[in-house]
């Protein structure tokens, strides 16, 4: 219980710290919105990828569905963006349910391969089905209604919306860290057969995790669409985006509450800071980092931090130590 509340307190602290960002960096709002949105989407990815251990390399499809749903409903039917966002979440949840029901019967790398295939097919559909999606030309969100007089295209407004989104994502991750559902996800991740022996239905649980992950990702996708205002399939349905989300979560620390957020902050902020030197090498560095993380620090930055803390408070031999219960 104490641990639970402590993490929640940290969560609150992180969000409060972020609220100061527009005041601290008023000329870097574009970057800020992107960092917060990606932190949220990486956390959403992590629900399936880190907590449940099902690696998806097709999450861009869910970002895209979220974005396109909001945009199409707004442009074609005048539906206000908040309903469009919820519709996107519902749609992706349904897609994930169907998709999961089909592929979660498979083990091994087949799930990963299927995510790539499905995302690619969706991209091709978006490009070719012009009447529905506007095709390769993409969509332009020219005008949006103003809830409470707020301009949704104002970067500061977008920042706080994105922050609210991150808050929701973090709360979900926090919930996973102590709930029964969260534990069943981890059980499946560690050893699916033993999990089954314990009475957990792996297929059903995986599908539920996928639905949560998908809806949460779509929420971010909708906000991303507003931020871009002008987007094409290539930007929101690209496999590069899927890989980026996975890597951010993993490098930050998969399966942890704050890992993906830390990954997003570190990678995207560093990318901007060092853009004069590393702009071209951005992806190269991602590649090198993931190799290093996978090889030497599978628990990412978060894991590395814990290891460092443990090292620092290592007691003299012979002295019993109360080690904080931690997941392997």
């Amino acid at each position: 219980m104490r641990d639970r509340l402590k993490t929640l307190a940290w969560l609150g602290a992180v969000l409060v710290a972020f609220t100061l960002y527009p005041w601290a960096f008023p000329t870097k709002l574009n970057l800020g919105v992107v960092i917060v949105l990606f932190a949220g989407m990486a956390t959403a990815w992590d629900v399936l990828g880190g907590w449940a251990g099902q690696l998806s390399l097709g999450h861009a499809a869910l970002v895209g569905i979220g974005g396109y749903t909001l945009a199409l409903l707004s442009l074609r039917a005048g539906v206000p963006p908040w309903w469009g966002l919820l519709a996107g979440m519902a749609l992706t949840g349904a897609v994930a349910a169907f998709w999961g029901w089909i592929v979660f019967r498979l083990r091994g790398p087949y799930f990963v391969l299927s995510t790539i295939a499905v995302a690619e097919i969706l991209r091709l559909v978006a490009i070719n089905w012009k009447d529905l999606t506007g095709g390769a030309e993409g969509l332009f969100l020219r005008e949006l209604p103003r809830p409470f007089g707020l301009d949704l295209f104002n970067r500061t407004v977008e920042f706080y919306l994105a922050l609210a989104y991150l808050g929701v994502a973090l709360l979900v991750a926090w919930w996973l860290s102590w709930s029964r559902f969260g534990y069943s996800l981890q059980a499946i991740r560690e050893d699916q057969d033993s999990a089954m022996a314990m009475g957990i239905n792996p297929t059903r649980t995986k599908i539920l995790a996928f639905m949560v992950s998908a809806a949460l990702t779509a929420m971010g996708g909708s906000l991303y669409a507003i931020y871009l205002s002008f987007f094409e399939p290539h930007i929101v349905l690209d496999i590069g985006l899927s890989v980026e989300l996975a890597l951010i979560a993993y490098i930050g620390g998969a399966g942890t509450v704050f890992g993906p957020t830390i990954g997003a902050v570190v990678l995207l902020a560093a990318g901007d800071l060092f853009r004069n030197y590393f702009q071209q090498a951005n992806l190269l560095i991602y590649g090198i980092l993931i190799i290093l993380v996978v090889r030497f620090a599978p628990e990412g930055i978060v894991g590395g931090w814990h290891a460092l803390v443990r090292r620092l408070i290592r007691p003299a031999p012979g002295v019993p130590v109360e080690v904080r219960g931690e997941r392997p």
Partner: protein
Amino acid sequence: MRRALLVALVVVLAGSLVSTAFPAPVEPLRIGVITSLTGRFATFGKMQMAGYQVALEEINRTGGIKGRPVELLVEDDASTVPAALSAAERLIAKGVPIILGTYSSGISKPLAGYMDRQKRVLLVSGSADDSITKPGSEWVFRAKSVASTYASTLFDLFQYLREQYPAIPLNTVAILHGTGAFETSVADGAVVYAKARKYQVVAREAYDRGLTDFRPILNRIRGLNPDILFMVSYEEDAVAIMRQAKEVNINPKIFAGAAAGFAIEPFIKGAGDAAEWVFSATSWTPDVKYPGARQLYEKLKKAAGMEPSYHAAEAYMALIVAADALRRAKSLSQEDVRDALKATKLMTPVGPVEFKDFLGFKNQNPIPMVVEQVQGGKFVTVFPASIAPGKPKYPTPPWDKR
């Protein structure tokens, strides 16, 4: 004490006198530029930079802007949207009076949307997609040609050939295009013009970029025997299409290329003899009959260190236009810069520049395009006659008779 004060006063007075005798260095005027220095579009970014450099030199040689030397504040968009938006934010924070950019339509579109909302002037220097200035915004200007002009110019050429050679029937068109935004919009334009000018579109095939084998599509089109094969492709695909067209033995009377892929040097190099006779529409060629075109070509070639593409010329034109507007602007406020741009009436080596609202476009320069043809392994500008030194060779002989 009083002595010291007196000395100090004298020194200060003397110093201020001296400083008026030697005026302080003039603060340079910084113009913002966003381009793709790295990433997928780096080669085009390089071309744009060459154009900007040639224009910058010319501007500073002719006295700068209101006596101030001009400098460029260049930001890299790394061929991605988020970086471009952050770059714009940075440039705006630095207070530049105008921003020029970028190559890719996929990036220029969100950039234009952002600049419009921020009420800052954007002069689009490299993107052709119609939707950037249609419906456009009061803050977004474009001096270069739009995607739909590719199609209209080629259909003007077809009309001309119809009239010059009435004995040769020219009625059916097959359209082949990539699924990218630009290619699709040009193809859409082609369909509209075809219908308007009484051509029958016998096929319209889109292909996704990547590992592309055009033989199946070309085979199918060959069976339909079109008079015109209208192709919209980027460089790599253009080369492959023409090579495979030769293989598959497809023989329309006209091979028409309506995009960058067919209009640049690497096309001829890559496709070899398969490039001969191909027409392509393009914004600018070195031998087009605008004043100073040939000299511009030489300068661009030196600045780029290689054969310059028309992107370099377009970037050059954009910076020249920006400088011209800033010289005329009453102040450097965004409203005054915008108004000065709107009043532009200029002739450049790349073509005439005026910003008009027409056919749904806003602040768009109705600059025409030209058509070149590969003759004897070289590009020759052949149409329209008023600005083209060469003549079109027609009709295209079948592959086995070349």
